[in-house]
């Protein structure tokens, strides 16, 4: 187990280096000059443009830019964005907001999704199961913007239970609406996956044995059935957490949440290499960590899986 974790951690290094390099060079390939764009439609003043280029180090060969960027990264310096703020500041501004929103949505999809999936799996073919099928299909079919605007209009503007948009991104109680919208699609997937897995495993030998041994129903379902049925769900949840962390540009836009999605979108638009690379480097780490945790969870859930 320890060796497995160590090996996975070592593997992360080339993956991290590769992805950041790819992003760095891809941002460079985007059309247009980010500094000239500071002047908008107006012709940039060549003297000032050259001075800014020099200050940002953009007048050096691309490879050298990359090397000095990576060198700074190792010392914890994420560089400076075009507006003069350190990229790390931008990350630490946006990341807590996104983490809160993502975990909120994640909690909703786990609790509600697994509960719905479990009950409809146990009552296969019954009314609840059919109702769940309709509900989840509906959630999967409705595009996020539509759901977002409907929820915003109904709860924010008509019923006035909450403000239509998030007034303070750092106040978690205001994130209820966006979290529900953000979690709803994954919730449907989690419910479908859980239901199918449960419905399949309920006929398995070990469940029949557990029932035959006279174990209480609660224990049969909780310890034996549910635990074994979680493997496909956990796989999905692992990648989904990464997706949620990368930010949801659409949801953030509708509810005016100032998170990673928006920051990244703006940085890409402005072709800010340092900011984009910084955010992506962070997200790559999140993905890698989530992948590792999922792999470790397999072993916990199913003792037959061993990591040497």
């Amino acid at each position, binding site marked *: 187990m320890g060796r497995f974790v160590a090996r996975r951690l070592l593997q992360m290094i080339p993956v991290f280096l590769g992805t950041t390099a790819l992003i760095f060079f891809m941002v460079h390939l985007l059309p247009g000059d980010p500094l000239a764009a500071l002047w908008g439609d107006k012709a940039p003043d060549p003297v000032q443009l050259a001075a800014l280029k020099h200050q940002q180090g953009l007048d050096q060969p691309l490879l050298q830019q990359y090397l000095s960027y990576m060198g700074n990264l190792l010392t914890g310096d994420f560089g400076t964005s075009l507006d003069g703020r350190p990229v790390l500041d931008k990350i630490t501004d946006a990341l807590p907001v996104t983490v809160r929103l993502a975990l909120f949505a994640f909690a909703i999809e786990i609790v509600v999704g697994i509960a719905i999936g479990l009950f409809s799996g146990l009552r296969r073919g019954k009314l609840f199961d059919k109702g769940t099928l309709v509900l989840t299909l509906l959630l999967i079919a409705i595009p996020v913007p539509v759901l977002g605007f409907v929820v915003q209009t109904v709860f924010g503007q008509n019923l006035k239970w909450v403000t239509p*948009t998030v007034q303070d991104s750092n106040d978690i109680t205001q994130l209820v609406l966006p979290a529900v919208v953000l979690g709803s699609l994954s919730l449907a997937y989690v419910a479908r996956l859980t239901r199918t897995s449960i419905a399949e495993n309920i006929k398995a030998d070990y469940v029949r044995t557990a029932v035959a041994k006279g174990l209480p129903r609660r224990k049969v379902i909780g310890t034996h059935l549910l635990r074994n049925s979680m493997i496909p769900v956990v796989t999905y949840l692992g990648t989904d957490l990464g997706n949620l962390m990368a930010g949801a540009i659409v949801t953030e836009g509708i509810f005016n949440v*100032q998170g990673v999605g928006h920051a990244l979108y703006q940085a890409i638009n402005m072709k800010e290499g340092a900011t984009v690379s910084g955010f992506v480097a962070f997200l790559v780490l999140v993905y890698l960590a989530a992948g590792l945790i999922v792999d470790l969870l397999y072993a916990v859930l199913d003792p037959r899986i061993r990591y040497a």
Partner: protein
Amino acid sequence: MPVAARARWVLAVATSVALVATGCSSSGGGGSSSSDASKTFSYQSSEPQNALQPANANEVGGGRIIQNLFKGLVDYDPTNAKIRMQVADKIETSDSQTFAITLKDGWKFHDGTPVHAKNFVDAWNWGANPASNQINSSWFSDIEGYQDIHPATGKPTVDKMSGLTVTDDLHFTVKLSHKVSYFEYKLGYIAFSPLPDGFFKDPAGYGQKPVGNGAYQFVSWAHNSQVVTKAFPDYQGVDKPKNGGIVFKMYTTAEAAYADLQSSNLDVMDQVPPSALATYKNDLGDRAVDAPQGAIQNIGFTLYQADWAAPDKAKVRQGLSMAIDRDVITKTVLQGSRKPATAWVAEGVEGYKDGACGDFCKFDPAKAKQLIQDGGGVPGNKLLITYNADGGHKEWVDAVCNSIRQSTGVDCLGDPKPDFKTARAAITGHQINGAFRTGWVQDYPLNANFLSDVYRTGAASNDFGYSSPQFDEAATKADEAPSVADTVTGYQQAEAVLPSGMPAIPLWYYRTNSGYSSKVQNVKFDSFGNPAWTQVEVKG
């Protein structure tokens, strides 16, 4: 400056011009009621792209915050777009080249230090120096000595422009390197704001916590969230604030801001989202705003290409202009958010001359066909209009093309570039084939701005390669005129040259389509698309 796409690069100048009040913006929703001068109101904003230094803000996010924190020598009257004195007591010139400026006594910065002549001179010298990395540095290029502090190559040899001389605390003179009769109009731009002495010791720190001399003083800046300001009790301007301050709330989308406006979580917004254009007047009732803006949309032509350079081709361009049904397109596709253009200068601007374009801006398919034929036809009988796909231009470009195709039989297609940067690179790099979307947003409300900076031979924003000796001569004569009034008529004469060459087809003028919440009243928008900030009243 030209009309930009996604980010509106409006060079926001001081509070100004609540033009035609459209019958609905004159008083607050439900009639005017008592107001509380200590209460603040919120305004939809976007995160400033640069530190809050006056010479470094050329986009709306930072620009409109700066224009409230700082006040220059002059600004523009909210009632008629005319220039009015603020810190300046008088600006005198006898030769349109040397300007003697007298300041009013008693102006103070928010830190309590007085506003003196040296605060202007130091600020301009600092802003012009390339070492200060100020985006608006070229605004000082009219001043004598700019070439030494901002040389085309190499390091600056001086740190002061020779044209600026401080006489005493309240007097200084500005000598320009050439005659610019309307120089005082330029002085309304935020880049010409004064800076307190403390600024020069820590420009970066002051960029995060600006200290100005405007109607509002800086309180706090929570990045990506909001900038809070409060009314400055010692403000000496003619427009004393009728409210307690402005909170600039950052919004990622106009849709989100509109949802907040309807539920009174936001008080005044910038522009309603396109999705709400059809409904906002119903949604907001008498709180909806529909006011003219000093901005125009054009279709420019590549006169630098052999196909379009021939003198006869002007007729083809005139014909194409007459083939566009502006009335129908502005009413349907653009949902009344634009007004058909009849000139190259936008409506409401000083020197605006209705109908300068003449018959060439009137829809007449028969005459259009005739003119195009007379001019030898469109090269290849096909017109491509390049535009940026991220600015909501597709709909009207397609509509214009349909109009041209139906009325003349010329094949016309939109040529989208992925985003604004790419489109601009193609336009300035002369990699356009035929025609492109272009436009202009006023830097200051004077017709010279719409003409000199765009159609003069070699002008920075002359992306057409247009060169007309008559136009240049008229413009130069106007620049050297003894008074602003003469300049205005001079430039009207220059504008009269444009129909014959038709380097760009005027399409329509922009409008401010906005609104405000039930908590505020007396919200009037100026031709820069900004509310008259100090005049907004918050209900008690």
